[in-house]
């Protein structure tokens, strides 16, 4: 292998590597493992909710499951998966030899596995895992929490540290290592969305760190930041949490926007419509995400002026989001489309994410949100954006770039089957949850009244279908890597554009030792 392969082999290669492709690969596999773990928790939840009454788990454990499911999916599955994608693709897309800070890159990955091992191990500790929801509202998470809350706080600190390091690395790479001639307004959309995401991350992860530090003080050092009895304020916790938490949901979705903006033009064989307005829309969404946090808190008893401000600001987000959706559709318009698996997932994304966007607009209206809030309507809404948004776009990305990464082609029929089964399973799971919420079923309950039975059963069946479809995905990917048909052409896809398609297939261990010229 010599100069073109890793310096060491075996396990140490992965432990000590500073190569962006190795690190990207590790992130991707780690996040997939977390997706399966978080998915297993979801299956336990759905199995319990298959019918009314308690049959599989106790309420206490049910609460641990919802908490761990949310935490693992957000911080373990989605965020690291996009960081992995960024590691693989950003250097290849901007013509850089590697990430700007490769040693830090290694560290920011290796923080994650022990952190999640620690979090998962709380399930076996006395008192059980964290049981206060991934939003961990005080005082439930401070005064009334199991002892493992301390590990939870430590874990959140570590995850935050890893994310901040990852983001600084991305910012440094994009700002400094672009190939000559690649101005900002020539960068691929995926690079743009990640640059903006990285700034969001650097801005809000310290806020989350602040929140958990205050919790730590309340739990162990006798302060009362969040305890009214000691002069503190439980609502303060929510303001701080959502000042982090709302941008966080855009941290999850913006890179997904980037992925879709790369893939749709390829299969429409037509350039992305409205590149400039895509960039501005992304930036506006990021800006607006900082001033809408309290729309998660319409029912805490804010003064009406605050309520109105947050309502209007939230409604505004629909405008740039709409621009993005219209641009994608216009990109397809009068194209010459083909429907390989990545494109199927992208069309699925546009369709389902937009449905999630519609319920988002509905939720933004404060007086109506009084009825939707904390009901299953919200659960349906955020899975339409997070699963059909982030997870669908991630699947699209893997199918799209895998041939470039490993020089082998996945099985198209299996890929299509994965799409259709997960599309059907997903809708069967989450569409009826809109009805449940509107009919009055609260979220995070282990058991429910009889009139909610049928839609819950449907939802559980859908969830098992969706879960099973991921095994097909795993099988297809492993089969591709080990024995897929070799792709020799540089371009796997007829319509693909961008520097990453100019490198050899499979992508060599070190790309771009001399920077390419961009005209």
């Amino acid at each position, binding site marked *: 292998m010599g100069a073109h392969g890793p310096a060491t082999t075996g396990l140490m290669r992965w432990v000590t590597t500073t190569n962006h492709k190795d690190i990207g690969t590790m992130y991707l596999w780690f996040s997939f493992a977390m997706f399966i773990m978080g998915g297993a928790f979801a299956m336990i939840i759905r199995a319990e909710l298959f019918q*009314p009454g308690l*049959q599989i788990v106790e309420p206490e454990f049910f609460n641990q499951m919802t908490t761990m499911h949310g935490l693992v999916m957000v911080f373990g599955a989605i965020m690291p998966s996009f960081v992995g994608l960024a590691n693989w693709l950003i250097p290849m897309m901007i013509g850089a030899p590697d990430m700007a800070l490769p040693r830090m890159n290694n560290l920011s990955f290796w923080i994650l596995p022990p952190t999640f091992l620690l979090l998962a191990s709380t399930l076996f500790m006395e008192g059980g895992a964290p049981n206060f929801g991934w939003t961990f509202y005080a005082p439930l998470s401070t*005064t009334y929490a199991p002892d493992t809350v301390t590990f939870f706080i430590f874990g959140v600190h570590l995850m935050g540290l890893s994310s901040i390091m990852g983001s600084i690395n991305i910012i440094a790479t994009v700002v400094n290592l672009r190939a000559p001639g690649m101005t900002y307004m020539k960068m691929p959309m995926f690079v743009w969305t990640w640059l903006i995401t990285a700034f969001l991350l650097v801005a809000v992860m310290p806020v989350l760190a602040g929140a958990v530090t205050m919790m730590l003080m309340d739990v162990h050092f006798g302060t009362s930041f969040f305890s009214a009895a000691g002069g503190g304020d439980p609502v303060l916790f929510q303001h701080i949490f959502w000042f982090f938490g709302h941008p966080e949901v855009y941290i999850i979705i913006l890179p997904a926007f980037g992925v879709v903006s790369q893939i749709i033009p390829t299969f429409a064989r037509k350039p992305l419509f409205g590149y400039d307005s895509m960039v501005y829309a992304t930036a506006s969404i990021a800006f607006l995400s900082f001033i809408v946090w309290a729309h998660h808190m319409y029912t805490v008893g804010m003064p009406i002026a605050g309520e109105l401000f947050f309502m209007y600001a939230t409604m505004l987000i629909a*405008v740039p989001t709409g621009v993005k959706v219209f641009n994608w559709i216009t990109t397809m318009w009068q194209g010459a489309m083909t429907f390989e698996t990545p494109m199927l997932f992208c069309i699925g994304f546009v369709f389902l994410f937009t449905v999630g966007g519609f319920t988002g607009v509905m939720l933004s209206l404060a007086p109506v949100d009084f009825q939707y809030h904390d009901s299953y309507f919200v659960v349906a809404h955020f899975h339409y954006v997070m699963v059909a948004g982030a997870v669908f776009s991630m699947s699209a990305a893997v199918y799209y770039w895998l041939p470039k990464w490993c020089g082998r082609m996945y099985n198209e029929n299996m890929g299509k089957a994965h799409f259709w089964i997960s599309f059907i399973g997903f809708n069967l799971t989450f569409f009826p949850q809109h009805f449940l919420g509107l009919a009055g079923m609260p979220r995070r309950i282990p058991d429910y009244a009889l009139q909610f039975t049928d839609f819950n059963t449907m939802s559980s069946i859908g969830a098992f279908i969706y879960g099973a479809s991921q095994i097909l995905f795993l099988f297809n990917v492993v089969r591709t890597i080990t024995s897929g048909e070799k792709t020799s052409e540089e371009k796997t896809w007829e319509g693909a554009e961008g520097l990453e398609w100019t490198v050899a297939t499979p992508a060599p261990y070190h790309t771009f030792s001399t920077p390419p010229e961009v005209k």
Partner: protein
Amino acid sequence: MHLRAKRLYKLALSPVLLLLSFLSTGAWAEEAQRWQMNMSPGVTEVGAEIYGLHMIVFWICVVIGIVTFGAMFYSVFAHRKSKGVKPATFHESTAIEIAWTVVPFIILIVMAFPATTTLLKVYDFEDSDLDILVTGYQWKWKYEYIDEAGDNVVFFSNLRTGKTEIYNEDDKGEHYLLEVDEPLVLPVNKKVRFLVTANDVIHAWWVPALAVKKDAIPGFINEAWSRPLETGVYRGQCAELCGRDHGYMPIVVNVVEEDEYNAWLADKKSKAAEIKALMDKQFTLDEQMAAGKPVYDQYCAACHGLNGEGGVGKAIAGSPIATGEMAKHLDVSINGVPGSAMQAFGAQLNDVDMAAVVTYQRNAFGNNMGDIVQPIDVYNFKQGQ
């Protein structure tokens, strides 16, 4: 297993069943409830307005959806390579891009008007006919009817569904999980203001039909209001994750005619007065034992066992507390043991019942302490804290 199979079968047939039930009006109401897909307008003016807003926005979304998805699916079907289409090359159009920034913006402004006026109504807490303090506890609600003369009526409202139903050992009743031992009672057509707070963690008081959902936050008092226009029984649940039994914290509101309400309130008050009168009475041991047993069975037995043998909680028989100093026994019963399953019963039980049950614990199950706790002892203990 049999039940499940039957349900699955029903599920498969659901569209047919739904259609059939449209035709046969009898089963319609029940079947409709099972398949309720939309918000209900409820029984208040504000609720109807919220429902209207919800429907307006829903239809706007449907129309936008038809247009955008229509365009998308049209190009999916018409503009495909397999049909030999040559791809166009356009990739921007300032006019179009401005148009689809401005048009949604205008639609949003159109939605903002009704949203704002409805919100203002939701926030109009003035001129209430009746004020009720709602306090969330882990995991029950306390209701306090505020009386200007200081003669407040207070009671707790607990889940009534039994464990055997929850664990599938018995058939589930019609109002499984949505039934309580004592519902909130409201007069019809009166503006009721709810003052909402909590004792431990954050809960949320949600009754869809009354169009009220408000967080109950310890240390804060939130306001909400409703004017139910129709009599009936309305059900809801706690809507904020509040710990283990979050799913078992129902709310039942009984809206009745005004004279019925007045009679109910008078009855509550006279019962409270009776208890007050008993405060000065000295009970005999036999009387206290007889009065204490039902209280024990209702509130203590679930954890401490019907025969004081223990369970989730420690055994009462031979317990160092039940056979030790009375003040400590009162302290544990009234204030609970923080961090354990032993709740503070001081607010839930009146002083008469508390005196009886403590006496019972000290003398039943072979404890035979021989001492009698009088209501005034409980009262004095509380005062002395």
